[in-house]
């Protein structure tokens, strides 16, 4: 079902009082680019989606995933941020 969602702060309130509260405990690994990931990848789902899908993705696999988030899921992420995100994901949640 489609609805208009404009109020992000309202969503945050929903998560903290709902079954999703556990997600507050998740922490991505410390490292350059983490803030950019946190700014771009929490809008639609918790970041355990990233942890869970590690350590087996190469840079090209992360690239394909991030492209899917942008092109299919509609994630509003700038080109500059994408390369920072890919560096971070490949370094901390990827394989050579």
């Amino acid at each position, binding site marked *: 079902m489609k609805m208009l969602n404009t109020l992000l702060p309202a969503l945050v309130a929903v998560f903290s009082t709902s079954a999703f509260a556990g997600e507050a405990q998740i922490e991505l690994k410390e490292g350059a680019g983490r803030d950019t990931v946190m700014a771009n990848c929490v809008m639609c789902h918790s970041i355990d989606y990233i942890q869970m*899908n590690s350590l087996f993705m190469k840079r090209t696999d992360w690239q394909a995933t991030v492209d899917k988030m942008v092109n299919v*899921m509609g994630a509003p992420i700038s080109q500059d941020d994408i390369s920072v995100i890919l560096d971070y994901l490949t370094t901390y949640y990827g394989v050579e």
Partner: protein
Amino acid sequence: MDRRTFLKGLVGGVVVTWPGLLVPRSLRAGELPIGAVESAVRAALSGKKPLIKRTYRPPNFETPVRAFSGVITPNDQFFVRWHLAHIPQVAAETWRLEVGGDSVEHPFELTLDQLKRDFEPVELFAVCQCAGNRRGFSEPHVPGVQWGAGAMGNARWKGARLKDVLARAGLKSDALEIVFDGADYGAIDETPDFVKSLPLWKALDENTLVAYEMNGEALPHWNGFPVRLVVPGWSGTYWVKQLTSISAMPKPETGFWMSRAYRIPKDKFPHIERFLSQEGEDNTPITDMVVNSLMTNIEEGQRLHAGKPVTVKGLAWDGGHGIRTVEVSVNGGRTWRDAQLEQDYGRFSFRAWHHTFTPRRGGKSVLMARATNRQGSTQVYELIFNPAGYHNNVVQRINMVVA
């Protein structure tokens, strides 16, 4: 996965995640990715017992293997799978089901009471298994929810036949697919809404239900309260939760979740049912489940006493042909014995089975189980790799320690 990474997660033969979560390494068609093991915790959603958390938002929670000790999966341990994070609390009184689409004569709306009162109630046992069940064991690993063996459950469902509901709307002769939408939605409008369709023939199957009860109770919120689709034999992706609309259409549904997700290579699974209006050049939607089994009471590395009889228990299921045999090997596949099949709850249900054997010292003590359905299809020894990690029915191997 490289061996060193994997070993980091191993202590004494079990994968240790957070305290209290021991994952039996019993499915040896690959291992879960280390990140999936480390990010899993036992956590309880409202109204549920603690399950294996794969993701918090949207909630994706897996049933622990130990909960499969009976043929019915309890509602409070039934796995939870959502794609989109907004899952409204739906009130029974205000819920409405819209029945319409370009291929019906008279669109109408139903309340929950009307659905229960106006249509003959039907009850049946059926397995709901996520298409991606066991994806985490795929080799090589593929992205997606990294499920172990518990993204499935079996319940007694009660509801109206979808064909009766459609009959009231009056199907036109050009109806091709029946399209289903639920109340869930994504964080932004750009994200494709979760919309699924069935070919007309499957929608009109007398076993396809618009269900409002699960094991004698209202559906749990996390399993689709108040009403979900039940599509016996077919993978869970079609079992749309919090159902809000049913539309008969003369054209194939083109949304992302039909046209690009939940697809398998066309040539790799020759026995599955076809969904012709959705077939592509080289891929096609996943449809019915492949025959499979799970041993539920013996864990990897379990110690058994030589000379003392042991009963291995398990479940078997398939896409609706029904289970013909389950065979068990206690010597790594050298010889096989028929297991005893337990009560038959119908061809869409889990079939419980057991087999008693006496462990002997020496040789390879590897326990295996292999189900065959009434169509003659059986489980595979090597994964039939596909990019989304579906249809993993690799024969399980459990190493026993006989002392």
